[in-house]
């Protein structure tokens, strides 16, 4: 018997046509391969979609593929991820679940303060699945605190625990700041742990736990993913053979394009020098038919960051045949703007750093606005204002919704009245 384990497909993450196309292609390859392999079922451990209400065109493509899988008699078991969960109501996952295209394997209730989860049994194989979906900002950790593990551990049979969280023990060093849970939160003695949320693939073992597997993102959910892919990180999914226990865990790579990665450090150079050298080095790159990722970082010795003509560079690479060009310049600063040193290279880290530093410079009397609390609140507010309007939502309704969410987060419900 076998099943496929996929995660973090983030369908709808890309609006740019080329990327959206590649994203759909990657998903398609996975679904086709599953049919080809005649897997008994597929587990998607969160972030199937980029948001709770994603781009419908992307959804359309994905649904078609999933439909084919269902037609082949292969059930698809899913949980919410941190992206495709909608705190305010139903998400795309719920809609697809209600059609029977996919099956959410998270069901439980709180009895006497304990969270009792219900197993879903795959009718064909008898494998028992149970899981906990992700919430925003790692809030699912509250569920793990009250989880009734004993009952889950005592359940006989082949058990799979599906989850969408980083695990302390296995997260990479550069994600040390990321919210995660210790593995002790998960029930023991399951035969397989289908993880999601971590965008690099990894397999782990620990005593009392079956294989703990993260497939990684299938294509790319963030610019960092592109960089990692460009540097050689494999993308794909897992096919797991099992009987009474796991017999084989096989990674199936999925590659939809070649990537070229180039980085340039502007330190000790002025903007004129940097522009010149960058142009020269990019000209020499073979980017035809490839995804080109350029990273520019460092502190300019002179001139402004706006002196660098990135649009021109991008155009040059496109004309050389690159299917897509992405220039990452978040690490680039000029000397005049050096009062804010940005250490993080991804948006999340940068935002965190900026919030922390700015909060520290303001005199605040309310403890909820200071230090870690304040930073957390700032992150939450930023997420809220970043929300996109739903399809068909008027501007007025959108503004109202965002305001309401913000007020709720700030615990100022009375103020709105």
């Amino acid at each position, binding site marked *: 018997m076998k099943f496929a384990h996929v995660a973090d497909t983030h369908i709808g993450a890309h609006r740019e046509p080329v990327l959206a196309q590649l994203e759909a292609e990657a998903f398609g390859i996975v679904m086709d391969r599953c049919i080809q392999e005649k897997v008994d079922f597929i587990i998607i451990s969160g972030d199937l979609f980029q948001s709770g209400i994603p781009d419908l065109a992307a959804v359309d493509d994905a649904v078609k593929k999933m439909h084919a899988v269902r037609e082949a008699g292969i059930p698809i078991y899913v949980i919410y991820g941190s992206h495709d969960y909608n705190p305010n109501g139903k998400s795309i996952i719920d809609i697809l679940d209600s059609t029977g295209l996919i099956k959410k394997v998270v069901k439980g209730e709180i009895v006497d303060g304990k969270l009792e989860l219900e197993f879903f049994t795959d009718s064909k194989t008898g494998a028992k699945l149970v899981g906990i979906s992700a919430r925003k900002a790692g809030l699912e950790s509250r569920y793990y605190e*009250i989880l009734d593990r004993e009952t889950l551990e005592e359940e006989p049979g082949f058990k799979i625990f599906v989850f969408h969280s980083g695990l302390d023990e296995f997260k990479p060093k550069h994600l040390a700041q990321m919210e995660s849970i210790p593995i*002790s939160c998960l029930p023991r003695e399951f035969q397989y742990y289908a993880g999601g949320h971590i965008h690099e693939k990894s397999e782990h073992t*620990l005593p009392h736990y079956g294989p703990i597997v993260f497939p990684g993102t299938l294509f790319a959910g963030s610019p960092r993913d592109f960089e990692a892919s460009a540097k050689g990180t494999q993308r794909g999914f897992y096919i797991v053979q099992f009987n009474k226990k796991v017999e084989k865990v096989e990674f199936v790579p999925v590659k939809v394009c070649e990537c070229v990665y180039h980085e340039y450090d502007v330190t000790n150079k002025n903007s004129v020098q940097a522009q010149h050298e960058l142009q020269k080095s990019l000209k020499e790159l073979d980017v035809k038919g490839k995804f080109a990722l350029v990273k520019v970082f460092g502190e300019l010795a002179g001139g402004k960051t706006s002196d660098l003509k990135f649009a021109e560079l991008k155009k040059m690479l496109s004309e050389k045949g690159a299917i897509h060009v992405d220039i990452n310049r978040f690490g680039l600063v000029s000397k005049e703007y050096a009062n804010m040193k940005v250490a993080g290279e991804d948006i999340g880290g940068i935002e965190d750093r900026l919030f922390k530093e700015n909060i520290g410079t303001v005199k605040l009397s309310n403890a909820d606005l200071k230090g870690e609390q304040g930073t957390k609140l700032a992150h939450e507010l930023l997420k809220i204002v970043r929300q996109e309007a739903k399809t068909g939502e008027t501007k007025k309704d959108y503004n109202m919704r965002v305001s309401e969410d913000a007020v709720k987060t700030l615990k100022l419900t009375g103020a709105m009245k």
Partner: protein
Amino acid sequence: MEELEIAGQIIGGKVANILLREKSGKEIELGDLLVVDESDEKYLILQVYDLSYGSQIPQTVRELAAGLKLEGYGSSLDFLEPHLRNYVMAMVKAVAFVSKGGAKIPKVLPSFFSNVRFIREKDLSFLIKPPNPVYLGKIRSGSKILDFDVFLDGEEMLTHHVLVPATTGRGKSNLVKVMLWSIADHKKFGMLVLDPHDEYYGRNSKGLKDHPNAKDTMRYYTVNPPPGASTLVINLRSIKPEHFEGLVDFSDTQLQAIKLYHRQFRNEWVENIIRGTQIDGVKSTTLAVLQRIIRVNLAVYLEEGQIVCKNRVFSDSAGEATISTIINDLEEGKIVIVDTSKISDEAELLIGSAVANEIFSRHQDAKAEGRLDEKRTVGIIIEEAPRVLSAERLAKSGNNIYSRVAREGRKFKVGLVAITQLTSVIPRDVLTNINTKIILGNEMATERHAIIESAAQDLSSDDRTIASLDKGEAIVSSIFTKFAVPVQIPLFDDYAKMAKPSDKKVVFTG
């Protein structure tokens, strides 16, 4: 002073040896705090450090009288006016002179023949609760416990280091638990607790896990974690050569070899040594020795091509972010308890060294950039401190991060809380940098002398008092206290108030 309150009267002596006669029945105790009221709301606080019998009856007569009684000759005889002629003399020293301006070190003798009384809570009003309080217990006068809490400022106390000298069974662990519980009330300091007996978290009993703020302020690392706790697993790539400094004796050849491996393989240097990867400039014999040293210290070796760790703490695949996470937690003011009960001393010290080195380094950088004020003070609690601070160890292996913290940590807001049974083996220059000593009972004279010699106050007359400290009784000698404060540390189980079950209803959505 009311008649009833009078405990005795001063009858002579000199500055550090004032003699007073106990009023009969008052039962002045060793360590008692007494007060002489002077004029204008000023008063002197005295502390009893010795007791002796006084008698108007010559020794030989007393001996004879005792003989008469014991041998049955004096059934009708007794001492008339016994309380007048046989009494207790207390030797006291003045520890504080209190006036409206606060407390000072006393420089005068109390008025001759003045009455003394037992201390009241009100007399201690000059001891103000500091802004970053760490609770130590209640003031103790002899064996009497006053309803007055003693706090030290955590910021000052930790950056100037703490020594907890005590023999077994005197309540060291209880003290540390009480302090940590108090620290957990506010997230002002990060505390790294190396716990070789797994006694702080409370895996099977009441412990720090039961603190109302435990979820936000505590993290527990252990090899076999209970639900919610973190696995103690550290990736070999987190280990740097400098983490071994002062803990493992490497020869020059071995050090050179390590340098070469590190240069070539960067953070995979340990793995490559374990795997036996040969490199230029390193003999196979040297490599073999390094493999053995790593096996002994980390319990890591190669088995059928796989890197195996006997105690499951070190790994080549997991635990990449453990050290970073611990450091981030410490910098956020959390208490990080590392259960080292199932690993060797060497491994425990290495883990502590890895964390301490990184914290120290971060704080040094922050200071260089003028950002040290943004950093929280971080304290490191280490038991059996002579393992890293003894003169013998330092002479043999040179300085390690712990001794470095002890000597320099104050400048970088990193502090040490060293727990030890043997103070005498710690070099004086280390001891003098540790400015708070929470002295528990100690029956070993050499140890008491070592403690006394390095104390912040003159405790030269307190040898007997220290020897008589019962379980839970302590003397806090610190540069931040006006005098050596006698305290009664509460039993942790009584002190720690259990977290109330949360009223917040959890709603589960799948």
